[in-house]
């Protein structure tokens, strides 16, 4: 097994396990900002995201002794954050109405949109506008890089459903991007 840890981080982990609050704070400071963005991607509000982040880090500190060091600590923490986010979203999915995804087949996609023109806050705001299921699948596939098979297993859906819903989410997002690039000034245009 490859050990991904050297020096300071190894010490940091052991100190966190032994309950050193300063070390825990340091670990939190080190990863909380990135993980907060992850939480924001899976949530609709900052309040919800902070709730996820808080729950995630409590899990991290309570289970740090189970960390096998077979991957970078950041990945391990991110996995916990994502699992926590999915758990939060599953509650919402139970209540959310299902959508007909067949219509997406006729939706055009526009690859002309250049994402590099956007900062992540703008994209984040768009992702947050997606329906919960789309938001989850979109995040998992497009940003986290999971395979559709893995997403299907994680969410308990068919792989085809994952693919089609992702495609739908992508179309919606691209529409938002296009709309953002070409805003329609209905009232104030000359």
């Amino acid at each position, binding site marked *: 097994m490859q050990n991904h840890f050297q020096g300071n981080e190894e010490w940091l982990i052991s100190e966190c396990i032994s309950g050193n609050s300063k070390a825990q704070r340091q670990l*939190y400071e080190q990863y909380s900002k990135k993980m907060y963005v992850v939480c924001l991607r899976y949530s609709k509000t900052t309040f919800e995201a902070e709730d996820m982040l808080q729950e995630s880090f409590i899990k991290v500190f309570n289970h740090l002794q189970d960390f096998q060091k077979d991957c970078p600590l950041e990945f391990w923490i991110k996995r916990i954050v994502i699992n926590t986010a999915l758990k939060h979203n599953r509650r919402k999915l139970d209540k959310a109405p299902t959508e007909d995804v067949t219509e997406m087949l006729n939706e055009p996609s526009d690859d002309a949109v250049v994402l590099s023109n956007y900062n*992540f806050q703008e994209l984040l705001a768009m992702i947050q506008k997606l329906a919960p299921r789309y938001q989850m699948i979109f995040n998992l596939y*497009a940003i986290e*890089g999971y395979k559709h098979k893995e997403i299907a297993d994680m969410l308990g859906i068919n792989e085809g459903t994952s693919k089609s819903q992702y495609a739908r989410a992508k179309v919606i997002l691209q529409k938002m991007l296009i709309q953002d690039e070409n805003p329609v000034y209905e009232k104030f245009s000359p």
Partner: protein
Amino acid sequence: MKNLVHDQNHFEDELSRIFDNAAIEPSSKVWQDIDHRLGNKVENAFQTAFQDALLQPSDLVWQNIAKNLDAPPFEKLLKNTFENAELLPSDHLWKGISDQLDNSLENSLQKVFANAELEPSKNTWKGIAKNLDSSFENSLQKVFGKAELSPSKKVWQNIEKALLPANHWLSATIWKKIAVAAACVCLMLGGVYVFNSKKLPTAEKQVGKKTDSTNVPENLTKNSEQKNIAKNSVENAEILSNKNEKTTTTTFDNNFTSSKSINIVKVEKNVPSTKNQVKDLNAQENKIVQPTIIENLKLVDLSDFQTLAIDYNSKTPILTLVLPVAFQSENEKTEYAYFVGISGFANQYNPNFALTSANAYLIPSPFLAGDRLGDTNKFHNSLLDSVRNLSSYSFGIDFGKKLTSNFSLQTGVHYTASSFVIDHIVNQLPPKDSQFAGFGINFKNMVHSNTEWLSIPIKIVVQSDRKGLNYGISGGLSADILLANTLKSDLSFVQYNLGANNRLNLSANMGLTISYPLFDRLDIGAEMNYRKALNSLYQSDMVEAKPHWLSLGLGLKFKL
């Protein structure tokens, strides 16, 4: 011909018209016949005959009627009959129903569609594949790859709060419990320390002295009062009215020789007048003055003797009480109506002597028993001012019943042991025929008192009824059985007697309690209480002692 036919029809019509409304009165004979036939004489006769006709039906008829009258109405019978009527339908009918209920069709359909997959059309896949193009995802991953935002400070605060129990090998709850227990112990130890620090300066500490190499301390003095005693005998002892009178000091004025050897203690006039001086002296005085006996006396040069001066005025009586524990915190589960507990206390004890008769002030003291004794610092003063090392402890078991959520009744059995020391300087006079007649020798003596009680308190406890830490106050009475009360003198030739003891005593008590639930049915608690005897320990008309105790204790209470 035609006219003939017409005439004939006319004739028929005319006939019809004539006979249609034709009416002829029948003959009277016919009417008579009809009347005769319609006459109801026979019927009337029958009616008359049967109008009031009665015939008793046969017994059988009557039995049938009665039977039908007792039976339920016909409709009811029918209803009862059909209400629970069941008839198994014919097999044929059942088969028809069964066929209708069979869901084999649905099952088949479910099976068919359960794993049904259809490859979407090429166009569909094309659209999907287009959307699945990874360049978009790669761009997004780059955008979000290093994205960072700071969450609010509240997040870490909440995490830190949530992690608090995990940072300790014990949970916060247990930690709190231990903290409370530790606080109770500290409170008790602190209290004992404070009380003990108030101990009065001892006689030997008050005496500034220099000892020679033999170091057998003796206080050999002569004063005018003693001289007076020597000359005029004990019978002429005077009654002193001033309880605070200090020992006067006099220097022996000439050589004093004896066949016995005497170790000399030089007593200087340096009487500590301030607290600082007392402290200095205390620091110098590490050696304990040994009790002296006459046989060890050597001849001394009385001119070397200086002053023995003791100031007892600085003494402050310290008092206390012992109370059975009142760990009255009843926890939130009111179903535990009873409890049993154990408790232990460290007490500050004060015998609280008071002189109740002028005879108590006699010199030598009426409380002394021995041969040729004087009373240098007057034992009655010692009783009031020279009592020290007032230590006491008690322990016992408690029983209680919760009357309401806030009131409890508590009793128990407690053993209390108390002790103290009375410093006293006793003066022994030489035999009358001795050449040293008139010169008394002072001996520092300590009288050790040990008292043991068995107390049965009964008290009411009023306390909070909250989850967690509870506070309460208690008050009640206690029956105190005196098990032992001894006064033991260091000097064997002098005995002290304050009178007969009262075996059964009564005391009042009040206290403050705190308690904390360690577990569901086990509470730990601390109590500070005060107990005061309501009657004197001694059956004496010269002295009384109504002791009191101030106690700090810990205990456990198990709820039943």
